[in-house]
């Protein structure tokens, strides 16, 4: 039963392909860590059962050995045969149960991994684009993957190992106690003392560990600096200074490490002594020798057989508990990611394509927006982007251009105010419908690793090759495609690496196929390689015809052809109008920008293109 439920849940996650047309009005409840394991909980108990069997079957042979020793001198050998037989069978059961638990654990783990990843994917489909945008996608995935690895360790290994590592000593100790309590004490007391010593060591060492961690971070940074600067250092013959700085950090690190370990030396030496099997053996022999009894010293034998492995077992349990803790916290982290509130989808979405041709006017009505609880980044923005015209957003870095652009692309919803397309609030439009009407071309062209054909027609799978090539021609990329040996079949990232300008033009061809009436651009020519600049410029111009275009401008030469310029400063609109009109106002913002930057210089304090719109910093 547990299996079926697990399979069906996994299967559901595996095949769910709802793509942005979800119309769930209610926000699903936050995900709890325990929920994530629910599909496999039954099976995990199965693993635990196998672990219990393993533990018991581990101790039985030991008990047999003790019994054999006790009856070694017997006249009748029947008992010995039986004990030997039990021992062999128990050992075989242990082997089978242990292997089974291990294998089964991995199988369950595989299902859990798929389930977690599928859940992540399903959730990513629904979260606000702004949430994704503010984190690097590689970071999001890496974070979840790291957590999945911890969960993997917990499910596949730790559950079984922990149960065994706890049960075996417990059963052994109980048995030993029954045989001879003195040896039980000798076996267990050093272990308890060891834990106390470790606790003290860890707490007193915490600060030194922190110092070490910091030194480690500094070392890593120092390496980066050294590597990045090495060519400059060589060019200007200042390598000595660089080496010195590196050596300094190195010495600090080694010192921090030594300091930390020196402090633990005493404690670790103590633990070494306490947990050494020979020490325990000696103590047991001492007691065994001291006991006056006739015949076989069963207590001593039981002590050695059952008690000696105790320390190692319990230490293993402690190590496993660490893995258990990090597995649980990893589940918590994943649950948190999965609890991110999804974009509220309208219960009854407006159909943009429905009632006749869409008026492609976009209006921002008194929009204010800020991230989280902080100060608003833009305030009281009211702009009308007339249908079929191009508006350029201009302003220094941090002025709010990118925020306006991302709000228009519904990366976030405004805190107050609203944004409308053809009179409809963006929030009333279903996601899929929205993005088929509002196209986006940002710095990262967002091409997938599949054929050019599939990339270009991604929003309309029924587009014919003719339509695709027509779009390519208008995007000035047709020749490049024809020059490729496999043409439209060429798989990006595998068979070819496009230059940034070529990739931009493919994205533009895609926008043509989508036939979106509104376009939001982050000046594509700014990111194109120099050879492509011309073609990209021409493609953008073509794409801008008869569309409502909102473009973030980085260079004033791009802006000159726009119907409307909107100048932003500190989150507010400070100037707007036609370029020629604005220039006449010599003291105005726009005119000042022209004087400061000229036609070509990038209008930003830092050279990095607008803060990560739609792309990774490392793409």
């Amino acid at each position: 039963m547990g299996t079926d439920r697990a399979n069906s849940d996994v299967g559901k996650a595996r095949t769910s392909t709802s793509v942005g047309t979800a119309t769930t009005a209610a926000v699903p409840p936050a995900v709890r860590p325990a929920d994530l394991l629910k599909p496999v909980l039954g099976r995990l108990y199965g693993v635990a059962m196998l672990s219990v069997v393993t533990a018991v079957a581990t101790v039985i042979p030991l008990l047999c050995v003790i019994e054999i020793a006790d009856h070694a001198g017997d006249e009748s050998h029947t008992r010995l045969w039986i004990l030997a037989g039990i021992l062999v069978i128990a050992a075989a059961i242990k082997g089978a149960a242990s292997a089974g638990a291990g294998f089964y654990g991995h199988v369950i783990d595989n299902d859990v991994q798929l389930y977690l990843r599928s859940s992540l994917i399903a959730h990513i489909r629904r979260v606000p684009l702004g949430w994704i945008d503010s984190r690097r996608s590689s970071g999001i995935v890496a974070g979840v993957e790291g957590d999945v690895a911890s969960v993997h360790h917990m499910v596949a290994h730790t559950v079984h190992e922990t149960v065994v590592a706890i049960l075996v000593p417990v059963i052994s100790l109980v048995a030993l106690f029954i045989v001879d309590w003195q040896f039980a004490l000798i076996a267990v007391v050093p272990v308890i003392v060891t834990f106390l010593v470790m606790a003290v060591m860890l707490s007193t060492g915490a600060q030194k560990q922190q110092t070490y961690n910091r030194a480690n971070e500094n070392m890593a940074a120092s390496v980066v600096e050294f590597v990045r600067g090495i060519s400059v250092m060589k060019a200007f013959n200042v390598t000595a200074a660089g080496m010195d700085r590196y050596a300094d950090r190195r010495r600090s690190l080694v010192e921090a490490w030594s300091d930390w370990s020196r402090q633990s030396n005493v404690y670790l030496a103590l633990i070494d002594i306490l947990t050494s099997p020979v020490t325990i053996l000696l103590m047991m022999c001492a007691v065994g020798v001291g006991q006056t009894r006739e015949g076989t010293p069963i207590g001593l034998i039981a002590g050695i057989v059952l008690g000696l492995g105790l320390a190692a077992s319990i230490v293993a349990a402690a190590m496993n508990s660490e893995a258990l803790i990090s597995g649980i916290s990893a589940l918590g982290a994943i649950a948190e990611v999965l609890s991110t509130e999804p974009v509220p989808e309208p219960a009854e979405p407006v159909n943009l394509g429905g009632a006749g041709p869409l008026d492609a006017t976009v209006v921002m009505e008194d929009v204010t927006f800020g991230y989280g609880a902080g100060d608003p980044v833009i305030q009281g923005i009211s702009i009308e982007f007339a249908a079929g015209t191009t508006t350029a957003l201009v302003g220094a870095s941090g002025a709010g251009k990118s925020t306006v652009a991302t709000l228009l692309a519904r990366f976030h919803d405004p805190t107050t105010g609203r944004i409308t397309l053809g009179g409809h609030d963006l929030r009333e439009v279903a996601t899929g419908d929205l993005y088929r009407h509002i196209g986006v071309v940002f710095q990262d062209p967002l091409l997938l690793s599949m054929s050019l054909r599939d990339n270009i027609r991604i929003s309309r799978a029924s587009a014919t090759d003719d339509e695709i090539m027509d779009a390519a021609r208008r995007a000035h990329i047709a020749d490049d495609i024809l020059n490729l040996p496999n043409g439209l079949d060429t798989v990006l990232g595998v068979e070819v690496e496009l230059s940034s300008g070529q990739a931009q033009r493919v994205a533009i061809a895609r926008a043509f196929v989508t036939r979106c009436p509104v376009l939001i651009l982050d000046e594509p020519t700014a990111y194109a390689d120099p050879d492509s600049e011309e073609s990209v410029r021409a493609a953008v111009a073509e794409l801008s015809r008869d569309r409502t275009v909102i473009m973030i401008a980085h260079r004033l030469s791009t802006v000159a052809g726009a119907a409307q310029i909107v100048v932003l400063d500190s989150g507010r609109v400070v100037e707007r109008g036609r370029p020629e009109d604005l220039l006449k106002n010599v003291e105005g913002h726009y005119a000042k920008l022209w004087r400061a930057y000229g036609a070509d210089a990038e209008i930003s304090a830092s050279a990095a293109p607008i803060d990560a719109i739609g792309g990774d910093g490392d793409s």
Partner: protein
Amino acid sequence: MIRDLFELVDERTRTILGRLIGLTSIAAICQGMAFVALFPLLSAIIDDDESGVDRWFFVIAILAAVNVVLSVIAGSVARSGSASLLDSLLTTLGQRILSLPLGYFRDATAGRFSEMASSGIGFAAAVPHAVIRPVISGVLTPATIAIGVAVIDWRVGLTLLIAAPLIFVAYRGIGRATGHSDREHTAAAALATSRMIEFTRCQVVLRAADENSRGVGLVEEALVGQYEAFGRATKTQGRAVARLGSLVQAVFTAAVVLAVVLAITDHLDPVTLIALLIVVTRFTDPIIAAGVLSGGFSQGRNTLTDLKELLDTPGLSEPLQPVVPRRYDIEFRDVSAGYGGEYVINDVGFTIPENSLVAIVGPSGSGKTTLIRLLCRFADPDEGQILIGGVPLPEIGTATVNSLVTPLFQDTFLFDATIEENIRIARPNATTEELSRAIAASAVESMIGDLPGAMATNVGEGGTSLSGGQRQRVALARALLKDSPVVLLDEPTASVDAATEAAIIDALFALRDAHTVVVVAHRLHTVRDADLIIVLGADGRVVESGTHDELIAAGGLYREHWDRRQVGLTPTEEERVHG
């Protein structure tokens, strides 16, 4: 892995590690012997032989004492070994960064080395106490016990001794079996991860996607692929691990059963049986302990392999007696070079006369930057030669080349210091006048006004407090201050506006009176007045060369690009540059 470690560390560390191995070995053997000594002790107890009991208890006590003392010392030695290891490996890394040819460093190198320095080497440093000690104990203690047991009863002893090669083979078997399916799984996992990243990154596009489009199902396909590959790997690895586990079990069981059988058939006395049973029971502990740690090996091992690869990377050949050229004309003779298997520049040959300004132009990917890198000896070309003043670069030696040739690349790096300090590293004892000239010529002067701290403005780590254009100008000032006979510039005016560009170009042309200047240019109008223009084609070959007028007349690739550029240029830009 231990072998790699010994190769990589310095003498001092090797001594410490050697000492550690010695101490641990003796301690392990003592431990084994203490267990073997149980035999006579148990016999004595059972036979009520008091003096025997005393004697053997004493022996065990001594062995225990020795073992404990040596263990404690070994622990301390292990820790100092780790510190020494840390120091030694980091020093090696630093030395390699310094001595590797600059061409070795690619974009990801800084991150890779940093990862090595922080976590990789950290894992490697744990090797003494996390690997060496348990492994040695895991081998020597059972070996000692097995030999001891063999002395007492050769049959049971033999059983234990046979176990060793069998376990070893099974252990290796795990490695081999998992090797292939592991690779398959790793590839599937990597694909799934990259698809997930792609999926996340491209959400804006995917939300507009048609249900039937290919892109929609890619990530799920990859996840299922990973699921299936992992399933296969689990089965294969599971089988191999089970084999190992059951082998260890089987050895123990066989030894015990054999002892019992021998006792029952009266080939073994009861006391020996008891003692044997006990000792065999504890025989497998150290083996299992060593096996458990095998997981931790791999991270440390990978770092050591990486470091070894660094050590083995060949450096450039340096001359014993560097030849210093007297003239500064440059010649490329049949030079071909590239990365991986592909040549980026092919059969390139040209001469740049002394005291001239030469431009290299061509489409992206034509190898222009590679030419510059070769000229400052980041690497030697795969074929052909580069000569300055008639002397091949390998005979001049990298150090001298560094002093004669100053490059200015597009990705500039500044140190976390003030603008003035950054410029002054070129020539610390330059006069104020020389500094002013460099600042003026590089148009740093005009940008100072906008900065609150002027020349004392701190540029941040790597120079990131400045814009790209500002960084470039500072780097240019630095290059100019160095005043080396040869100056190489890769797109020096890429991020500046037209007015600044004109000023910089003027300064560069002024340089050619006393310097050999090579400029890689994309904006053809900036280098129209160059003494020589070398045009590279997309395949990395020299397509044509000559002065601007000659090339225009020739009507080839240059002419084509020139005509196209003219269309894009606004009248004001043209005016500004050419007056």
